[in-house]
């Protein structure tokens, strides 16, 4: 039986209250959906002395709303909220597409966007999808609020730039994208990716514009693929260009071999997935995330 070590449990009554409680206790952690932290606590990989429950802050932190050309997603928005958001379906298609292949529907009912991002698992699909929309991480702490670009937020696996007392409160997308898609290869339903990638772009007649590629599980953090992006930018994709872009992205990936596949296998997945993701994003009416089972 897996049981967490003992801890004190307190409920945050506001974001400011959560920050005050977090700042006052070096050994405290915040908990939202709990679907990353509790498994680590059950394995005793994490043993915080105090848990600060954020689940009562939904009126402050659970939202998905347009803000000019951009979109703001509150940290307590659940994975399910992302799937069901008409706004994201229209302006940030890569996000609901990715969410369909994150864990499973039951986990998505409780797991939160802010928790996923702050947990900083290098195989977290949502981070790779958010990278394609130039996401900024909204942070609040004892010294006020700040925004950090997502690609600067991660320092490595499970490590972020969050300072003691700071809390992820929001994901800010400065702009949307009219096209997006996410593809993942996993060994079994609900597993972490062997490799996955997301794309977002706009169309200037048939030419790709503002192309962004986010790679998942092929580096110590989620990665962009800037050379492949540059190759595609401004071009009307054909089979030869997509093939070349796939090869370029595969070379940019930084996978290591593990139980989910060898380095060569993972690079090959990226090579194959990029053209398919671009085609998927171009195909009108695609509405459901797609998983390809490896075995």
């Amino acid at each position, binding site marked *: *039986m*897996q*049981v*967490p*070590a*003992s*801890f*004190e*449990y307190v409920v945050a009554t506001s974001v400011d209250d959560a920050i005050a409680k977090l700042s006052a206790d070096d050994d405290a952690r915040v908990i939202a959906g*709990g*679907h990353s932290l*509790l*498994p680590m606590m*059950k394995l005793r990989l994490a043993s915080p002395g105090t*848990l600060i*429950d954020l*689940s009562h802050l939904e009126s402050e932190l659970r939202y998905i709303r347009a803000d000019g050309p951009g979109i703001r997603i509150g940290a307590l928005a659940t994975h399910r909220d992302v799937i069901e958001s008409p706004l994201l379906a229209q302006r940030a298609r890569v996000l609901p597409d990715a969410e*369909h292949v994150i*864990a*499973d*529907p*039951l*986990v998505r*009912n*409780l797991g939160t966007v802010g928790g996923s991002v702050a947990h900083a698992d290098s195989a977290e699909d949502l981070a790779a999808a958010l990278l394609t929309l130039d996401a900024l991480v909204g942070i609040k702490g004892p010294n006020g609020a700040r925004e950090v670009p997502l690609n600067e937020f991660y320092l490595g696996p499970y490590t972020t730039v969050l300072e003691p007392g700071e809390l992820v409160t929001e994901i800010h997308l400065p702009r949307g994208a009219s096209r997006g898609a996410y593809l993942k290869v996993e060994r079994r*339903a*609900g597993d972490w990716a062997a490799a996955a990638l997301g794309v977002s772009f706009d169309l200037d007649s048939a030419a790709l514009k503002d192309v962004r590629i986010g790679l998942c599980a092929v580096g110590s953090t989620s990665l962009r693929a800037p050379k492949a992006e540059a190759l595609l930018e401004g071009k009307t994709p054909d089979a030869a260009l997509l093939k070349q872009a796939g090869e370029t992205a595969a070379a940019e990936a930084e996978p290591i071999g593990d139980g989910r596949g060898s380095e060569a296998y993972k690079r090959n997945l990226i090579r194959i997935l990029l053209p398919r993701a671009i085609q998927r994003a171009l195909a009108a009416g695609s509405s*459901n995330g797609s998983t390809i089972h490896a075995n």
Partner: protein
Amino acid sequence: MQIKVEVNGEARVDEVEPRLLLVHYIRERLALTGTHWGCDTSNCGACTVLLDGQPVKSCTVLAVRADGHAVTTIEAIENPDGTPSALQEGFRQKHGLQCGFCTPGMILTGTALLRDNAHPSEHEIREGISGNLCRCTGYENIVKAIQWAAEHAEEAAAK
């Protein structure tokens, strides 16, 4: 700490340790053993219960998190007159269970699925139960059981 939880429509007040998981609270404190305890790692879904109507894995929820919320377990899924719900009947009609270990979780997930989407496609059913594992691998008949319930829900409700 003290928690107040509505379990299957009944208000409960209990003193629990913060680290007590919801699955153990339900099984050991409330003796509702229809909620099964399986993988303990939020994979298998045997411990599925409805939290405010949404299926969740109770091995990965603290009992204190349910404070002020409503929990529904398999014991409260039957019709008010004690007959099986349409989905329970579907599992009987379509041989939707073999060993039965995953069945309570499947039925709770399926119940919420049909409530939100009365006529799901096969793809939607399969995605919907993708967080509930059947080690007998009896998925074909589980999908058929949910389809049976979708087809018969109205006549079951009219009874």
